[in-house]
């Protein structure tokens, strides 16, 4: 780090302390510091840069270079609240400056109008707490555009007949078309569907001192060495630091939000790298720690004033967790496709975005993408091979030699229905390496989510058939026990009894406490949440700036 970056003392009362530096935190830091505020970002993970990133699969996927480590921060899992949760890795999220945006696939789908008003449109669904958002697509549209232009998204406006309205085209053309994209496009069109170039948060052209994608092939789960992937680390943090008003403080693990006697937040209490405890003082606190750690922090911050957890008068902090449903079908082709080169996805389709429940017999909708996102070890160790493939010996070697360059995956991504019993909470027994209660996940998919995943996956298989796959198979659709998309756990709403934050991301209970990340979601969308997390963050920054300038945070 260079010397000209600003450094605050924990005792300096800055305007905002932001907890988390990922998709939402990075944008809030950039926007608020640009707007003239003094900001400290507390990030629990290290400050890695492009030079630290690696194509070593063991370092990234087994040693968790970029992600939460199951030994330091173990989890427990159970399906329903009446079970005792068992230790089991239940989730993965980015734990470094830049958060999960460092290693995501970068599928950047906007939500459509329906995602905000689904409850009104489809009515009540038994077994689900589905409600409408307090904002609409029209409210968020300018911010989707802002994400595309400020963070950097490649795509082709108007290519999908199902796209919602947009105020501006993409700032740059789509990434190159992969062979699996060509095959997917031809087959889907044969079936009367409407495939189109995938919108991706990866640069197809150099921009703002960042290089265009060099197609290295280590994309999903890996960090980008040339800043082509539009992470907060590459796109937002440098701008925030350049204002001279924003300090990114890594290795700072926040475990409590401190209040004064009037019930106002006065700052965040954190462990530094040596496990010394500090209080960073601030006029207002913004939590962007992700859909698992944000509710966990509120629950850890329980006090006499808030015995059930901070900002939890509704009792729903941590509840209504949604993971997105979906599945994977795979095929092997005769041609050498070499799809290990490049980013993951070049073609998607949205024909199934809004299914007619009367016709299909379940609620939901989703999209499909064609991809190859497997790195060599995971492909050969089992992730990419047919279930009946030989597992060792000459035939195994022949199979990996033939299939690695000829395998295509079709991912289906769909809705998850919110259920109050699906949640993140504090495990009563298990502790992390800092002595804090571990995250406990409770999750059982709504039956419609399972039906949807099977339905979408079958269409993936149909496309592989139409494309002439020589062999095809699918992972079994089962109830999910492992979370990547962490959504809905501090949902937004206008009624303080049934939501945690208002439409300005301000908690109903604490006037100078804001939450913004996947936890803010009311519905799950169709499986690609980061674009909407970022649009919400740009919008929240505008709302928070207006409130601060209006003197409302000091009242």
């Amino acid at each position, binding site marked *: 780090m260079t010397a000209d970056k600003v450094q605050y003392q924990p005792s300096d009362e800055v305007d905002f302390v932001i907890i988390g530096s990922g998709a939402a935190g990075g944008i809030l830091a950039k926007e608020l510091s640009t707007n003239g505020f003094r900001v400290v970002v507390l990030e629990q993970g290290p400050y890695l840069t492009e030079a630290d990133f*690696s*194509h*070593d*699969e*063991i*370092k990234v*996927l087994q*040693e968790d270079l970029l992600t939460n480590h199951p030994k330091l921060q173990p989890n427990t899992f159970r399906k329903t609240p009446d079970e005792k949760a068992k230790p089991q*890795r239940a989730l*993965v999220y980015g734990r470094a400056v830049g958060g999960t945006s460092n290693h995501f696939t970068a599928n950047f789908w906007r939500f459509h109008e329906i995602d905000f008003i689904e409850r009104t449109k489809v009515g009540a669904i038994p077994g689900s707490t589905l409600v409408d958002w307090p904002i609409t697509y029209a409210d968020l549209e300018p911010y989707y555009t802002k994400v595309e232009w400020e963070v950097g998204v490649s795509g082709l406006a108007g*290519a999908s007949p199902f796209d919602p309205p947009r105020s501006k085209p993409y700032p740059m053309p789509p990434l*190159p*078309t*992969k*062979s*699996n994209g*060509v*095959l997917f*496009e031809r087959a889907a069109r044969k079936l009367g569907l*409407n495939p189109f*170039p995938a919108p991706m948060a990866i640069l197809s052209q150099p921009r703002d001192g960042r*290089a265009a994608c*060099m*197609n*290295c092939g280590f994309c*999903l789960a890996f960090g980008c*060495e*040339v*800043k082509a992937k539009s992470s907060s680390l590459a796109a937002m943090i440098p701008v925030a630091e350049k204002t001279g008003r924003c300090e990114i403080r890594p290795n700072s693990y926040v475990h409590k939000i401190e209040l004064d006697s009037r019930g106002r937040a006065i700052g965040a209490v954190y462990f530094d790298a040596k496990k010394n405890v500090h209080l960073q003082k601030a006029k207002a606190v913004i939590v962007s720690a992700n859909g698992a750690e944000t509710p966990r922090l509120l629950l850890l911050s329980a006090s006499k004033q808030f015995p059930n957890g901070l900002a939890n008068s509704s009792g729903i902090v941590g509840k209504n967790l949604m993971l997105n449903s979906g*599945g*994977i079908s795979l095929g092997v082709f005769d*041609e050498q*496709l*070499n*799809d290990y*080169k*490049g980013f993951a996805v070049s073609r998607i389709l949205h024909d199934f975005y809004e299914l007619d429940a009367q016709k299909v017999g379940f609620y939901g909708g989703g999209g499909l993408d064609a991809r190859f996102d*497997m*790195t*060599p*070890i*995971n*492909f*050969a*160790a*089992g*992730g990419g091979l047919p279930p009946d493939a030989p*597992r*060792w*010996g000459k035939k195994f*070697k022949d199979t*990996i*030699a033939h299939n*690695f*360059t000829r395998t295509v995956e079709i991912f289906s991504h769909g809705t998850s229905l919110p259920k109050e019993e699906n949640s993140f909470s504090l495990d009563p027994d298990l502790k992390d390496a800092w002595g804090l209660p571990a995250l406990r996940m409770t999750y059982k998919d709504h039956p419609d989510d399972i039906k949807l995943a099977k339905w979408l996956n079958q269409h993936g298989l149909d496309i592989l058939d139409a494309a002439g796959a020589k062999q095809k198979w699918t*992972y*079994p659709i*089962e109830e*999910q*026990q492992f979370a990547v998309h962490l959504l809905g756990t501090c949902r937004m709403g206008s009624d303080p009894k049934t939501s945690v934050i208002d439409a300005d991301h301000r908690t109903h209970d604490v006037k100078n406490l804001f939450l913004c990340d996947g936890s803010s979601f009311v519905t799950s969308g169709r499986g690609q949440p980061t674009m909407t997390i970022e649009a919400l963050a740009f919008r929240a920054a505008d709302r928070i700036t207006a409130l601060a300038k209006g003197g409302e945070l000091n009242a």
Partner: protein
Amino acid sequence: MVSAATHAHAVVASPNPAKFEFFAPEEAAEVEAIASRIIPSDETPGAKEAGVIYFIDRALVTFAADSQKTYREGLPEIQAILAEKFPGVKKFSAATAEQQDAILEALSNSKPKITASRRNRPNASSQPFFETVRYHTIAGFLIDPESDRRGNKDGVGWKVIGRDPGHIFQPPFGALDKDYPGWQPVSAEKK
């Protein structure tokens, strides 16, 4: 920036290290014999040529230290099966390929479950002996050869699966995008 990446990925071929960090030489010979049946050497290189044994040896003092016990208990287990099935054969590494396969067949009956959501993060520890050696053999064969893990020597594993050793590629990538004319709306195609 791209040139910096090229530099960072410059391939340096290194000789196999002479010393093991975990195994005694005789243990290493047994493990290498197992790895060589998992990915045999035939007309193309196998686990042996990729230096998988050196990868496993280092793995057991780094990321896979949890599996030390699995190896220390697994090797005698193999020895016991050998004595039962093929009395007179002293060591696994001295058995014929057919005998070795028969022993591994007996060991490889518990296939760990891979789920869609965890397919990229398989739980590589706390698996039975054969599964542990299998995962380590595959990882040692296909690890990025530029890493410091001593596997995939000279990139032979990647060559076997057809992965170009480079880390910078330009389209066209494969057979179908080579002659692809570019995206056209459906209406334009129909006209």
